[in-house]
């Protein structure tokens, strides 16, 4: 009965196979070969690539660095975005103007903005260091010192993507019913207690959504690093996707980069699932009711 239904499913199924399943399976196959610039082609290398990866400290460091970078940027984006959204949530003068203004960074092209930020951070030609000197803080080695370069990447990421958080959280705030706030007023709650007991709990679900979307994006941080520091100085700002890019596209070690990618995919899928579960438990009380 209704055997025709498969015909209707077919287009979607084909797209799914072409876009997701085939590349995935192909990557799995490639990761068990030693395809590189000298021996292009699918041979059988067994688990050699995985063994090599296991010993590759640079890869694991990049993974660790990426985790740190993601957590730091998403957290800062969340706090800043929430604060900005709270600022323009209630009736304030020129509210519309501010709402648009806060969104501007998101509308720009990330790569272009990274180039501009690189100019800003430039230690002798950029405008930032003279300003810092003028303030008495002194010039900083923004892109040539490992710690500062890391901070620079965080700053650019936060600048670029806080508006996204802001947008989602503002939409969430605007969709909240007004009654609980009236009730809190009647019950005599002050602004801080109202935020902690009413606003924040009600924002739980949307917060988790916003954080997860950003976390998924942040786990792929690549262009900022590529343009701003090229992973340097040394490998101090290298993220996983950038390292895989170097191995695969620059060194042309297709087999090895496939193994790296696959491992990266699995680790990220597991990690993000766990994070999602933890966040749900932590922030969404009363979900599903």
């Amino acid at each position: 009965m209704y055997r025709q239904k498969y015909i209707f499913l077919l287009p979607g199924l084909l797209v799914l196979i072409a876009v997701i399943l085939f590349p995935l399976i192909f990557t799995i196959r490639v990761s068990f070969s030693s395809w590189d610039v000298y021996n292009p082609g699918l041979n059988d290398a067994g688990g050699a690539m995985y063994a090599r990866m296991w010993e590759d400290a640079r890869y694991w460091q990049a993974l660790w660095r990426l985790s740190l970078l993601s957590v730091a940027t998403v957290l800062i984006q969340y706090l800043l975005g929430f604060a900005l959204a709270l600022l323009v949530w209630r009736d304030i003068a020129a509210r519309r103007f501010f709402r648009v203004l806060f969104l501007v960074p998101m509308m720009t092209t990330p790569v272009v903005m990274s180039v501009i930020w690189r100019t800003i951070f430039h230690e002798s030609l950029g405008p930032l260091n003279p300003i810092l000197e003028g303030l008495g803080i002194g010039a900083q080695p923004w892109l040539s010192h490992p710690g500062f370069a890391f901070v620079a990447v965080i700053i650019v990421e936060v600048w670029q993507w806080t508006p996204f958080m802001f947008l989602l959280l503002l939409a969430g705030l605007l969709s909240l019913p007004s009654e609980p706030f009236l009730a809190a007023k009647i019950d005599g709650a002050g602004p801080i207690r109202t935020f902690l007991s009413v606003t924040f709990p009600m924002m739980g679900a949307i917060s988790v959504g916003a954080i997860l979307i950003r976390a998924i994006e942040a786990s792929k941080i690549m262009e900022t690093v590529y343009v701003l520091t090229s992973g340097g100085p040394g490998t101090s700002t290298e993220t996983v996707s950038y390292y895989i890019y170097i191995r695969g596209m620059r060194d042309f070690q297709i087999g090895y980069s496939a193994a790296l990618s696959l491992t990266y995919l699995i680790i990220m899928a597991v990690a993000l699932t766990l994070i999602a579960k933890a966040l749900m438990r932590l922030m969404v009380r009363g979900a599903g009711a």
Partner: protein
Amino acid sequence: MVEIRLEQLAHAYRRGGAYALRPLDMTWRSGGTYALLGPSGCGKSTMLNIISGLIQPSEGRVLFDGRDVTALETGRRKIAQVFQVPVIYRSMTVGQNLGFPLVCQRLPAQTRRKRVEQIAERLGLGPMLHRPAHSLTADQKQLVSLGRGLVRDDVAAILLDEPLTVIDPQQKFDLRRILKEINAEFGVTMVLVTHDQTEAMTFAEEVVVMNMGEVVQSGSPRALFERPATRHVGSFIGAPAMNFLPADPMGPQVAVAGTGLAMPRPDATEGRFCLGFRPEHARLVREGATMSGIVTRIWFEGLDEILALDHPSGEVRLRAPAGIGLKPGDQAGFVLEDGALRLYRDDRLIA
């Protein structure tokens, strides 16, 4: 437990704009039950929100026991307000919800627990104290909202903003009973906003009928039923609505043409007259009818039937015992009980 007095109270949402609430004076005695009744947008919720302090009135004063609270912030008025949508703090348990106003008052934990337990016991929420509040049913949530008001030992008044609208009929009945009991037990002033006349009439000692931002009539349910001050009140209260027929001065009387419905003529005869009577006050008769017409429709209403009669001067409805054996198309006549007829001039009661 305060007497609420509204002095020359009025409100316009925009400065210089149209009144959402026209200037009014009103006194609600301590411990009384009052209902604000009117269609949507008549200003009843505005009035309630002014009393609770969620809205600052543009004119006039609000007095609690003679003390001016117009400028006092909401939290300090010691008011409980229950909204149409059950409001609970979703992240808290029932107990935490009930205790929230006390937390805001910074009372010690022990006092809080005692009060919360008392109130929960009274409202039948005792067994649910530790359950998450969002898992309750709608009527239980309304009880929690109510409880958050009652839990303060100094609660001044309970304002109910259409609290029964989203509740199932059976639970509605129970909730209304609980409200009445609470009123009797705590002696707390209660003001109910509603657009449901049955709810208003069964709940309150005094019903304030509002329309277009104005208090049209205020009085006991019986007074509103017997002597509606305007056509609007007559139509709004009672089911089916009061009958109104256009009337003209004829000799010493004002009468409806083609019927025996007549009232003594008043001194001044300018304006539009009409006569009104309740469907409940009419009695079907075979002979000697004051007015008769053709039956156009019959509704079933348990022990009663509602008949619609067509007459050249308009349609009237009557409440008659079931099983009188009339059907649409039949001729039927009725007489009115003594003193059941009311005379209106320009839609206002004059006799």
